[in-house]
């Protein structure tokens, strides 16, 4: 057990590291920033796995050792528990509490009464030479075994979820559809055993609504969705924060939302080069988005845009949003011309500016348009919202939940129950006037919680005294 305690401390210490240093699986960007500020230390921490503590070999080693020590401890305890469970109650040599009384009945009857009385108190009983032995409180050890075993179960559930589950994110503009396949996600993590078993259903976002309190605190985010299996409508529902849509083992969570202004770009001859809602990501106090127009010649065009839903220019001349509502929607843009470099892999939310040079700048309000000196017309004829869903399957979750329940259920008897023994010996004694009489000796012993056993023992004595109808203590 000393080893286990040391390992528990090691686990606590190791876990704490990950709360002070940014962790790659949680926030990759924070890790990059942290390393940029401290290059030397960053490289060292990288080598020893401090940026992914909970996936690091040494962290795994600590909890594996803990589990090994746990199993090593549990096996003999299970054996002992099995023996004790099956054994019949035996009397002890000497109880911590004893009582002697006289019963107004014969030996056999007194033993019967004592046995029944103890059974009513949920003691297991066994006849012994001239009496009865009783025992209860096996659940203390049973609960403890359940508690400890549940951790092994928990780990199995975690491993199943990691191996066979997946977890992806996707932004969908109101009115658009998304088909649940690998390529349709904006980002996705799949377990090594997941094997591309995507469900292939189609999710249509009808509408998204964010409501706010007067002070700007968000009250509710709701996505109205229809879920189709092929052409068949199978769900028509709302997805809210804390209220995911669950379908075929896949859960769809309301994660985030944002603005998707419809941006139209026309060439001087009226050719429409771009006409679609553009997803703008939150950036500082506003929103940032890009449009890439690869089909123009000789130069390709890129627009880098900032969007403000409720624009106000402060006294220092800086634009900002004064509310979360679309009261004064504006799009500011910076044009870039040159080569979008689309042959290189790149983000849809960034323009690769290495082969581009800045062109015109401008601003356009909702339902307005602006013609640039270069001949293009930029217009902003509509504003929609997009909703971001976290879509995940975790087949191990039920196992983890069951393990958690076992941990909790096992904890109570292991902390609050106690093993205790009571044994009764009865001897016939000479009766005055021919009435049957016997001498009754009670002994009791508790392993734990001795103070409360003292009360219980007193109650047992009182009960027996009443039922045996005899005299008091001698």
């Amino acid at each position, binding site marked *: 057990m000393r080893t286990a305690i040391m390992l528990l*401390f090691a686990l606590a210490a190791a*876990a704490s590291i990950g709360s002070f240093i940014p962790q790659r699986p949680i926030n990759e960007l924070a890790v990059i920033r942290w390393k940029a500020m401290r290059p030397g230390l960053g490289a060292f921490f990288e080598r020893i796995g401090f940026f992914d503590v909970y996936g690091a070999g040494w962290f795994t080693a600590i909890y594996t050792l803990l589990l090994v020590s746990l199993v090593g401890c549990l096996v003999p305890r299970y054996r002992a528990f099995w023996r004790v469970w099956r054994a019949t109650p035996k009397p002890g040599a000497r109880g911590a509490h004893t009582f002697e009384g006289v019963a107004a009945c014969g030996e056999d009857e007194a033993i019967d009464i004592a046995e029944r009385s103890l059974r009513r108190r949920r003691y297991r009983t066994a006849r012994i030479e001239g009496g009865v032995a009783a025992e209860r409180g096996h659940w203390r050890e049973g609960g403890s075994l359940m508690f400890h075993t549940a951790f092994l179960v928990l780990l199995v559930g975690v491993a199943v979820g990691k191996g066979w589950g997946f977890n992806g994110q996707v932004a969908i503009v109101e009115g658009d559809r998304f088909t649940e396949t690998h390529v349709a996600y904006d980002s996705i993590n799949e377990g090594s055993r997941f094997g591309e078993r995507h469900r292939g259903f189609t999710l249509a976002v009808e509408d998204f609504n964010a409501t706010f309190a007067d002070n700007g605190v968000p009250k509710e985010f709701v996505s109205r969705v229809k879920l189709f299996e092929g052409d068949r409508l199978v769900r028509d529902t709302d997805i809210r924060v804390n209220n995911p849509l669950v379908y075929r083992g896949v859960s769809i969570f309301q994660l985030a939302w944002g603005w998707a202004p419809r941006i139209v770009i026309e060439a001087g001859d009226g050719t429409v080069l771009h006409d679609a809602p553009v997803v703008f990501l939150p950036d500082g106090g506003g929103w940032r988005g890009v449009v890439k127009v690869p089909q123009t010649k000789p130069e390709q065009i890129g627009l880098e845009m900032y969007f403000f839903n409720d624009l106000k220019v402060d006294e220092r001349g800086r634009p900002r949003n004064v509310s979360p509502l679309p009261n004064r929607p504006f799009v500011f843009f910076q044009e870039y011309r040159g080569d979008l470099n689309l042959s290189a892999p790149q983000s849809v939310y960034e323009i690769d500016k290495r082969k581009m040079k800045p062109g015109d700048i401008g601003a356009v309000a909702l339902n307005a348009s602006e013609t640039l000196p270069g001949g293009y017309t930029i217009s902003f004829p509509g504003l929609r919202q997009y909703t971001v869903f976290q879509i995940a399957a975790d087949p191990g979750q039920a196992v983890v939940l069951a393990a958690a329940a076992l941990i909790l259920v096992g904890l109570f008897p292991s902390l609050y129950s106690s093993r205790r023994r009571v044994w009764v010996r009865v001897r016939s004694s000479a009766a005055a006037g021919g009435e049957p009489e016997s001498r009754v000796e009670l002994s009791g012993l508790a392993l734990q919680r001795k103070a409360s056993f003292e009360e219980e023992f007193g109650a047992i004595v009182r009960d027996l005294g009443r039922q045996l109808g005899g005299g008091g203590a001698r």
Partner: protein
Amino acid sequence: MSVAGISDTLFWAALVFYGLATAAFFVAIRREAPGAMRSATGRVALGLTIAGAAIHLGMIVTRAVAAGRVPWGNMYEYSAVLVFLLVVAMLAVVSRRPSLRAIEPFAMLVGVVTMVLARGLYAPAGPLQPALQSWWLKIHVISAIAASSIFSIAFVFTVAYLIKERAERRALFTGSTVGAAYAGPAVVAERGGAGFPADHLDADPDAGADAPPGRGLAARLPKSSTLDAWSYRLTAVAFPIWTWAVIAGAIWAAKAWSRYWAWDPKETWAFITWVIYAAYLHARATSGWRGRRAAVVAVAGFVSLWITYYVVNLWIVGLHSYAGT
């Protein structure tokens, strides 16, 4: 005055009552012989505490009305409810075992400090953001509060134990002063018979709570084995509640964020706190770790509990960062 305004006023009133009660308890503890009746000062202190708790309950109820939701939605409210439960738990323990009265000033001091810190974290009454609107969250938070308040009382017992145990050891070695009726080292394991191993864990916690050695405050404390047993008892009550709080939090996380566990700093520290208290409960059953060493582990658990609450919410950014506002 608005309901929110009434709540804020009641907060100050409760704090004043608690402050006066704490001072009165500290005066009373010096005047009262252990085991004797409460002095007049002691009765005043108790009255102030009960009145303070009644006002405090009013503060919590009006807050709930003003915000239109359960009154544990931010750190200010969380702290306020924690202190209320701490005071109620203290009164419950002391009314059952009057011999433990000496812990009152210390428990109240913890309560007052937490209350003052709460005021520093004040936030106006208002609705919760969507991620926080969940029954699982409400259960998760109130369980965490309940466990924390009981852990806090257990911590008071642990510190009292460490003070007392030190005084007793000194008395033992120097044969000193006040401890005429003092019988020997505090933790005396009873030997069981009949193949039952000896059990030391909860030797009657209330046997002979009086006549302790030590000077000053230490002399007023019940004997160390009593303090130790109560520290253990309370931790054993708080631990399953904390376990439940962590589980409910994970269930909520699964509903709100699609994963039940992601080593977010709050999750990490809740886990660390759980691990340390688990180590304490194990340590109590392990030879060589009983007494002082186990008590040190309990103190570490409480420190970790505070880190989980204050440091993580205020200094470490995570998904729980909104808990501060």
